[in-house]
């Protein structure tokens, strides 16, 4: 007797290739990793912001202490603060830092240091040429001890004579 084909059962479905399932699993893993990286980075942002807020609170408390510490009139505290700035950043420290930033072709003709809540500097500078002048300005900015570096007017043919104003940020280190 010949064996008849069996039509009574359904054909078993074809199983998807393993690599396709692997692809989906890899995708889900990538999504998980991206989610985790995002969460960690956001958490780091929150932590950094909290640190900033804490430091700002500390700063505010120091500022109020500065006002109250002397138990004296505000005008006097301002004068004492000015004098304190001179103690923290005596002229020789400012001059030494400036000398380090001066290229060989640049000379400082005049330097005025004005002490106050901030220490203001006014420099009368002579540079042999435009490139030395540019280098001097770049060094001042890069140094980190000088803020708000503002060059005065300049004529870029030949020797440059100009005035640079800046704020001393060297402080008491």
């Amino acid at each position, binding site marked *: 007797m010949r064996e008849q084909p069996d039509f009574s059962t359904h054909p078993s479905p074809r199983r998807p290739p393993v690599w396709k399932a692997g692809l*989906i699993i890899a995708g889900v893993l990538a999504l998980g990793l991206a989610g985790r990286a995002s969460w960690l980075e956001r958490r780091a942002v929150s932590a950094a912001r909290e640190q900033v807020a804490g430091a700002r609170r500390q700063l505010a408390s120091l500022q109020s202490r*500065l006002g109250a510490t002397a138990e004296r009139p505000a005008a006097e505290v301002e*004068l*004492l603060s000015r004098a304190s700035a001179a103690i923290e950043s005596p002229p*020789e420290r400012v001059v030494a830092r400036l000398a380090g930033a001066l290229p060989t072709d640049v000379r400082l003709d*005049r330097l005025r240091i004005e002490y106050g809540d901030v220490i203001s500097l006014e420099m009368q500078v002579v540079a042999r040429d435009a490139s030395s002048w540019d280098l001097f300005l770049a060094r001042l900015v890069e140094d980190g001890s000088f803020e708000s570096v503002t060059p005065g007017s300049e004529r870029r043919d030949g020797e440059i004579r100009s005035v640079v104003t800046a704020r001393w940020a060297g402080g008491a280190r």
Partner: protein
Amino acid sequence: MRRIRLAALVFAGSAALYLAVVPPARREREAAEQEHRQVLEEAQRLRVRVANVSRLSREGPEVRAADGAAAVGTLRAAALRATAGIAVSGVEIGTGASPRGAVAARCRVKVHGRLADVLRVARRLARPSSGLLLDSVTLAAARGDVTLEAEAFILREQP
């Protein structure tokens, strides 16, 4: 085919999530860290300032005088001490009493000499024990050397 599309969608979603969140958050964190460093530096400067102001306010007679005449005398003596024994020339000391306000008297000290020497004078003037409070300093190149001009003051004694 459907599974490949689904996997591609999941990969694209991961990349989009990563790119939308991580790089901006990293920039934000770096900016916050930079700000934190600056605030800490500022706080450190302020801490030193508070300590100095507190000390100066306690020092009393050293940076204070009862009246204009006494203030002028104290300032003059402090200026002379600052230049004593240092090889500087053209020493000029100008003093003037202030009739009212927290400042009792002001003085202007001018000296000429080698940079190292005028800086020594400036250092003495800036010291807390100098007996005067430094307001401003001007250094100017002159005749191959340097001229220092310093402005200082002394506080009025509080009743």
